[in-house]
């Protein structure tokens, strides 16, 4: 058990190292261009270029450059933007985290609740028209580009039907701090939550239904029937309970990935200044230091989240726990 834990943590550190190397290679060693010019941004003066070269150690060997980059991002945190001269990058990234968390957590609540309902109802009525309808709706949810869905909801709630009783409560785009204005925070986030969660409701609903239907084929379900349990109990206590392992693992991974930047498209469409939107703005300004930082922090977060999920899984699942 302890060994497995250490092994998992060791693997985590290795993957983090690999990621940082990969990021370093992408930004500093892609053949074909001068990394200093990229970092300095468009129309940089020769003096700025020189400053960039010096501060990142481009005249030194690769390993020094790598260490310099890592130090600037994780230890001293004094990486600055050259496009927005002197702007400290790490604090700027940290400022955006609460926005992303607000968005993702609300959406997660929606998608867990609704996908559980859909998965269970579809599995219970498998083969019927209810099941088929739910699965088709889920498939449509999966097939919609999230940013497009967001735009369409904006079109409806901000413009076309904004003046009707249905959507007059929708505030203009943007984010309000929870501490300043809890009601405003909630109202501005409702539509983004719905937008972000629809894909996952469809996905998780389908995954859960498939997992339940699969467990219903297991021998222990036959035992449960032979015991004389009701179908509802067999479905909820035996089939669903064993299917939840897959559901929870998937949830951990997706939640991590969303906080780590995959909510970017939703943030862009709704003008929410989260991690993703910050990265997107940096992309438009060609502000590489910001992108480097968000990519590294976000992927490290995802790796750690995955490790936490695996470790929790070890603690929760009796089969893994004693293995």
């Amino acid at each position, binding site marked *: 058990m302890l060994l497995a834990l250490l092994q998992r943590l060791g693997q985590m550190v290795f993957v983090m190292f690999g990621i940082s190397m990969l990021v370093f290679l992408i930004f500093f060693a892609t053949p074909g261009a001068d990394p200093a010019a990229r970092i300095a941004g468009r129309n940089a003066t020769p003096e700025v270029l020189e400053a960039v070269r010096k501060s990142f150690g481009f005249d030194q060997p690769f390993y020094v450059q790598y260490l310099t980059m890592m130090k600037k991002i994780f230890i001293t945190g004094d990486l600055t933007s050259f496009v927005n001269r002197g702007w400290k990058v790490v604090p700027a990234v940290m400022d955006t985290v609460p926005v992303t968390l607000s968005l993702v957590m609300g959406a997660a609540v929606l998608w867990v609740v609704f996908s559980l309902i859909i998965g269970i109802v579809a599995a219970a009525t498998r083969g019927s028209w209810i099941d088929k309808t739910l699965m088709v709706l889920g498939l449509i949810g999966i097939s919609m580009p999230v940013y497009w869905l967001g735009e369409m909801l904006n079109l409806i709630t901000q413009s076309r039907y904004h003046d009707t009783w249905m959507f007059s409560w929708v505030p203009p785009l943007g984010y309000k701090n929870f501490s300043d204005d809890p009601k405003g925070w909630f109202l501005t986030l409702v539509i983004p939550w719905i937008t972000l969660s629809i894909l996952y409701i469809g996905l998780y609903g389908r995954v859960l239904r498939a997992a339940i239907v699969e467990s219903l084929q297991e021998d*222990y379900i036959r*035992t449960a*029937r*032979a015991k*004389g349990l009701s179908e509802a109990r067999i479905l909820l206590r035996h089939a669903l309970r064993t299917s939840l392992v897959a559901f929870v693992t998937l949830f951990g991974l997706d939640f991590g990935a969303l906080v780590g930047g995959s909510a970017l498209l939703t943030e862009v469409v709704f003008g929410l200044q989260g991690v993703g939107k910050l990265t997107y703005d940096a992309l438009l300004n060609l502000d590489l230091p910001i992108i480097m930082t968000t990519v590294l922090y976000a992927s490290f977060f995802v790796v750690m989240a995955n490790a936490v999920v695996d470790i929790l899984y070890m603690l929760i699942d*009796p089969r893994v726990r*004693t293995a």
Partner: protein
Amino acid sequence: MLKVRDLSVSFRTEQGIVRAVDGVSFEVGEGELLGVVGESGSGKTVSLLAVMGLITDPNAIIAGSIQYRGRELVGLKSRAMRVLRGKEIAMIFQDPMTALTPVYTVGWQIAEQVLAHQRISKAAAWQRAIDLLAEVNIPKPEEAAHRYPHQLSGGMRQRVVIAMALSCNPALLVADEPTTALDVTVQAQILDLLHKLRRNHGSAIVFITHDMGVMAEIADRMLVMYAGRVVERGTKEELFRVPMHPYTQALLDSIPPLTGEKPRRLRAIPGTPPILLNRPPGCAFAPRCAQRFEKCSAEPELGNGERAAACFRVTA
């Protein structure tokens, strides 16, 4: 107590209809142990699953009559069947490794069945689970009740499954090859246990196996099945002493003798059981039978007596 008449179970498949069980009839008396033997695919498990109402495949068609203490079970509402199942008719399955839900403790799973059929408190149900574990000779039952299935050996798990089946003192117990998946020594222990439990509880048992050796130890009366039909029936002594059907004979020849010099080679039955799809006319065993003759191209009938065999060598 259990009367099965002309039971047929067919499955609709892509290739056509498969008659897994075809016109099977048998009876089980109170407290009796009926042994059902046959190779895999002979329909023995499917017919007993039909008795339990456990065939959930939507492509299955069940016909005939199954009467339990005068009640017709074929076509019985699932709710009414559920009340019987687990309480009056219980079942033990072949593979104890997969028969228990992996995420609950074994005590919980036994108590669950008790609670489903009896109005008692959770604490009482838990105590009953511990008592049952003790009854099936599980050491330290209080601790064992807290264990998850994967923490127990195959033999221990089968004991748990048996404890669960006995939890409501069923009048009829269906045991589907309960020892096949176990080691030989554990097999003997489980058989001993079933003997003891049978004496204590007085349940009637239907014991399914492909192993004539196991039959020799425990059965009162026997049923030999082949290709979805009963080919011979009678008491154990009759069948072992004077097998009437060549198939029964062949099954007996394939048991290793317990004493004396071991033969260099056991006689295996040549060929494989027939495919049940588009079954050809005539005796299904004929292609593998050493004693076949021209009459075998017709369908032999099983007589109505307590002792009968579906073979023209007998009736002729």
